[in-house]
C-alpha cells in the first residue's frame, strides 16, 4: 500500500483561564512564537513511520515526551505512539534530547511499524559559542542599565522584572538575528511488518530540514525520503522496489477564534529501482491544524496524488494527537532559615 500522507503543523496554543483578554492574546502569541521556535509537536502520526496513512511531510519535533496519536484517511486508520529521550532523562544535550522512538499500527494494511528519529535544532542556545554569547551579553547590558530600579523605588520587584524583560526582548531579537538562517534537522529510519501476509513491508529513511526566517514568518520544510518496498513473492517485479521523493512545504499560523496553522506542500516521487511498475508521482497536500488544548491537537487534511499523467484520488483525513509533557516540579519552596 502506498503511503498517502498529509502533514499537520500545529504551532499555536490557547488556554481560557485568563480573564484579561489582552493578556491572553499576548500569551497565546508568545506560545505561538515558542512553539514555532521549538516545533513542539505535529498532530497525527509521524510520516517516517511507514504505515502512517496521513503524513507526507515530516519536520523536526522536540520535547514530545510521550505522544499518542491517530489519523484517519477514508476508511483507513493508523494509531501511533512515541516516546522521547528527554521524557525519560530530562534535558541532556541538544544532540540527545531530540531522540525519539515510535511505533504504529495501520488498520487496513495490518502493518506494524517501528522507527527511530533523531532531531537537532541548530538554533538551540546550548550550541552557541562563547563568543556569540559574549557579543549578545555586551549588547544587552546597556538596555538594563537604562531602566534598573534604584533602592527605594516603589514596587521594586515589579520594576526590576519589567526592566529585565526589556533586556530579554533585546536579547531575543539579537539571538533571532544571529540564528534565523539555521535549520532544525531530523533524520529518521523506520520499517514495517505486514502481519497479514507475514512479510516485511516498506522501510524508509527521511531527512527533513525546517527553516524559519527565510520567508518572513512562514516556515519552510524541506523533506527527502527514500523507501524500500518488499513485494509479495508472486509478483513479477523485482523483490525490492525503491523510490525516492523530495518536496517543499510551507506553514503559516493564524490567530482567529482559535489559533490554527495552515500548511500546503508538494512532493515529487521518482522510482529508483530497475522496475517499479509505475511512473513518478506527485502528491500535494493541504491541511489545517488547530491546537484545541495545550497538549491536544486536531487536524483536517486534504490530499491529492497523481502519477504517470493520470489524475489520482483525492482524499480527506482527520488527525488527532495528545502529548504528555513530563510533569513540571512542585510549588517553589519557602525560604529555609539557616
Amino acid at each position, binding site marked *: 500500500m502506498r503511503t498517502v500522507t498529509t502533514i499537520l503543523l500545529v504551532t499555536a496554543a490557547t488556554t481560557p483561564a485568563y480573564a484579561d483578554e489582552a493578556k491572553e492574546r499576548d*500569551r497565546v502569541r508568545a*506560545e505561538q512564537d515558542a512553539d514555532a521556535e521549538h516545533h513542539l509537536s505535529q498532530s497525527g502520526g509521524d510520516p517516517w513511520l511507514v504505515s502512517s496513512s496521513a503524513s507526507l511531510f515530516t519536520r523536526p519535533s522536540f520535547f514530545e515526551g510521550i505522544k499518542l496519536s491517530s489519523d484517519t484517511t477514508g476508511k483507513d486508520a493508523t494509531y501511533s505512539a512515541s516516546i522521547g529521550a528527554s521524557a525519560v532523562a530530562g534535558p541532556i*544535550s541538544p544532540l540527545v534530547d531530540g531522540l525519539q522512538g515510535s511505533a504504529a499500527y495501520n488498520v487496513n494494511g495490518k502493518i506494524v511499524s517501528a522507527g527511530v528519529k533523531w532531531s537537532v535544532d541548530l538554533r538551540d542556545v546550548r550550541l552557541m559559542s562563547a563568543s556569540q554569547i559574549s557579543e549578545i*551579553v555586551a549588547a*544587552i547590558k546597556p538596555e538594563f542599565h537604562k531602566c534598573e530600579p534604584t533602592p527605594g523605588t516603589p514596587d521594586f520587584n515589579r520594576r526590576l522584572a519589567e526592566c*529585565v524583560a526589556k533586556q530579554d526582548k533585546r*536579547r531575543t531579537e539579537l539571538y533571532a538575528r544571529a540564528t534565523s538562517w539555521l535549520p532544525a534537522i531530523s533524520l529518521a529510519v523506520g520499517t514495517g511488518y505486514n502481519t497479514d501476509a507475514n512479510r516485511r513491508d516498506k522501510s524508509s529513511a527521511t531527512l527533513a530540514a525546517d527553516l524559519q526566517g527565510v520567508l518572513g514568518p512562514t516556515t519552510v520544510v524541506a523533506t527527502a525520503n527514500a523507501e524500500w518496498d518488499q513485494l509479495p513473492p508472486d509478483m513479477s517485479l523485482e523483490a525490492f522496489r525503491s523510490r525516492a521523493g523530495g518536496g517543499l512545504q510551507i506553514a503559516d499560523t493564524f490567530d482567529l477564534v482559535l489559533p490554527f496553522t495552515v500548511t500546503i506542500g508538494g512532493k515529487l516521487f521518482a522510482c529508483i529501482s530497475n522496475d517499479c511498475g509505475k511512473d513518478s508521482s506527485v502528491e500535494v497536500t493541504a491541511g489545517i491544524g488547530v491546537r484545541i488544548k495545550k497538549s491536544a491537537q486536531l487536524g483536517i487534511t486534504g490530499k491529492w496524488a497523481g502519477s504517470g499523467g493520470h489524475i489520482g484520488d483525492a482524499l480527506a483525513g482527520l488527525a488527532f494527537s495528545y502529548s504528555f509533557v513530563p510533569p513540571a*516540579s512542585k510549588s517553589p519552596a519557602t525560604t529555609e532559615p*539557616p
Partner: protein
Amino acid sequence: MARLRDHEIELAAALQADIPVGDLLFGLRDPDRIDLATVNAFVDTPMTAATSSARAELALAWIPSDVPVTVHLYMNEQPIVSGSGTVRGGRAFFAIPEAMIVDPRKLTFALSFWQGRWSYQLWGRIDDRKFLLQHGTDPDPASKDDDLVVQSVLFGAP
C-alpha cells in the same frame, strides 16, 4: 577531572529530581577555582566568582547547564556588585560583602533563563551555615514568557 565530571552529573541529576544540592554545590566551588579560566569566559565583568574566603555568598545551580542565565542580585534593594551579568556552565557563586548583610536582609534576585526546560536552586552561605533560598522549575517548557524569575527572600536568620 573525571571526578569533577562525576560530581557535575550528580548535580544535574539532583536538580532534575529536585533534591537539595547544597553540600554538593558548595563542594564544587573549589574545583571551579581551578577552572576559573573556563568559568570566567562566560562571566562578564564586574562579576567575579566567589571564593571560600568570602564570609557570605550565594550559589546558583541550574540545568541545562549550557543555557546562559542573566542574573541580577540585590540585598535590601542595593545592587550586589559582583552579582549582575550573564553566566553559563550550570553553577555560579557570588560573594556578598559583609557590610551588605544588615536587616532586613531582603535578597532580591532576577534570573532570566535564555531557553526553557530549566530547573534551579539558589543557596546561601554565611560562614559554615548553608541554606536553600529558593528553587524552581520551568512551569511550561513550551512558553517563552515564563523564563524570568524575580523574587525576594530572606537571606539567613534575622
